[in-house]
């Protein structure tokens, strides 16, 4: 170790991996339905894509978690986004390639991507 910058580089790199362990008061929660129906429809790559995207952008107040069956199995994979003071947004028939757009538009810029929500699919 020859400089403080070196130490900082290691710290920043390792920090992302530990963020999940902070007893978070995360304001935004992204919840992926991971029951049998969700997994069968391909929820796992979606979940991983969200985790990666959130970590890549260093969004410390966002928590990605999984839950059981949300109850609308024909629309799986289902992802719900909870933000305090706002109505829950439900994305349906999710795929991994929709994730980046949702994180950018909805989570960062605060504009839900309506074309992927349940309202657009009914």
């Amino acid at each position, binding site marked *: 170790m*020859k400089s403080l910058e070196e130490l900082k580089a290691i710290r920043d790199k390792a920090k992302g991996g530990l963020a*999940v362990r902070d007893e978070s008061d995360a304001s935004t929660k992204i919840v992926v339905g991971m029951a049998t129906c969700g997994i069968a429809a391909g929820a796992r790559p979606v979940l991983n894509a969200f985790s990666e995207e959130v970590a890549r952008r260093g969004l410390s107040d966002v928590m990605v978690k999984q839950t059981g069956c949300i109850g609308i199995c024909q629309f799986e994979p289902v992802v719900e986004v909870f933000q305090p003071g706002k109505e829950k947004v439900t994305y349906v028939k999710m795929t991994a390639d929709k994730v980046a757009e949702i994180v950018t538009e909805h989570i960062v810029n605060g504009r839900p991507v309506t074309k992927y929500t349940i309202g657009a699919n009914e």
Partner: protein
Amino acid sequence: MYRSQVLICGGTGCTSSHSAQIIEAMEKELKAVGLENDVNVVKTGCFGLCALGPIMIVYPEGCFYSRVTVEDVKEIVDEHLLKGRIVKRLLYDETVTDTNDVKSLNETAFYKKQKRVALRNCGVIDPENIDEYIARDGYAALGKVLTEMKPEDVIQTMLDSGLRGRGGGGFPTGLKWKFATGGNADQKYVCCNADEGDPGAFMDRSILEGDPHVVLEAMAIAGYTIGANQGYIYVRAEYPIAVERLRIAIDQAHEYGLLGKDIFGTGFDFDIELRLGAGAFVCGEETALMTSIEGHRGEPRPRPPFPAVKGLFGKPTILNNVETWANVPQIILNGAEWFASMGTEKSKGTKVFALGGKIKHTGLVEIPMGTTLREVIEEIGGGIPNGKKFKAAQTGGPSGGCIPVEHFDVPIDYDNLIAIGSMMGSGGLIVMDEDNCMVDIAKFFLEFTVDESCGKCTPCRVGTKRLLEILTKITEGKGTLEDIDKMEQLCYYIKENSLCGLGQTAPNPVLSTLRYFRDEYIAHVVDKKCPAGVCKSLLSFNIDKEKCIGCGLCAKNCPASAIERTDYIAPGHKLASFAIDKDKCVKCGVCMSNCRPKAIEKK
């Protein structure tokens, strides 16, 4: 990128209840369902709630699973990690809300009042991974000291913080460092006292097992401050996990150039070596510890000269205990004012206690100084199990004393504890209830010091032995009132005349129990009774012939064949009752635990 992290405690408590096998099973099960790249399994240090071990925490949900077994692992993987359904039956009940939701561990009674400074990384990081330590600002304090601070700035910060030695003495750490800066010695040393020996104490062990790098970093800071380039950690060989993790930590620090030559390119060299102690209690005394590092038999020597002037190998040395070291990097990073804002007027910061004895939440807690004993025992510790009544709390191990219920609301700090006849000690806190005999407790600690006295000075070697003889006499019902007075005198004699801390404090358990529980001593001497029913010689077992149903289970199980059937048949019963032959009875109590109608009593 892992979407989920499973933290499993690898401290000594959980390891002894098979957490290593749980980690193995977890990795196997994850592989079986193809999640090995999605879920990260991390072996951490102690979480603190040892009573509920083995402990597993699953993030991001923060689910706190307690008393996990190898058999439970498959269910956790299949239900929680694969399908996202929390395994509620394994959750620690205090983390489940009334509405059946999971709440954060930090909101439970055990954690709520705690303030984790020395333990901040324990149970959070993988102690065998230096990157995780660095991620939590590890080695940043060393970097700051080496690049921005002069040695006198560091000493001023330490003085201003008010940090006092956590090993028990409570000597101001900044002052100790300051004493070692003077003089123009060609060589100086920095030592870490990890020879934790009090019965029931495991604070330092848990820090070393959960966060070994913090000690290395702090020692390097001290090395820079006093101008030393060599450190020694004296750790007992009975702590194999701690030793192993220290070794790994030292290797990793070398690899990163955080120990060794020219650290951070500032020209500062510092290295650390381990020295394993063979487990002699006296080696926790600073002069004996240094004698032992030098390769001699661990015996204390008179002070002065103090180690800061003439210590290891005759050179100026600073010696601090593990918990003291663990506070140092945080003080450097957050400032002296931050640290001094916690605690009481003369005792700043926090203190780690190892809770043990008759208490619900056995484990490791860190509280701000000034918290009352009542808060620690009733709120954090969860109170006394089985509805028993609190009698006393023992702090300071064999050097400390017992605190009775009337001092329950005294704020815990160095000076208050001494004023009520005990001491802070290194942080063991043993809770006793109505079933503990205080004379027996004093005898237990005396037996320990008699065993551990090194024998160099007479007051300790002979004095503690005589003291134990009188105590034994009392517990056998052969004591007199005169013995109690004689014992008290002897206590003061030993305290005044012993060479080192071991002897000077050895009579404390006797003195403090005499001070608060003299009536129990008198009951043993005058009434020949042990009120708590512990001292065997003073007990007698009796069968109530009216209650005895004559089943004979007691006689069948009696190892001394001391129970026989009588001719008496109680009204309403069909069989003749039994009686105990007091001459044959060995007072083992087996009959009592086998008696269904509870006809046997001990007095």
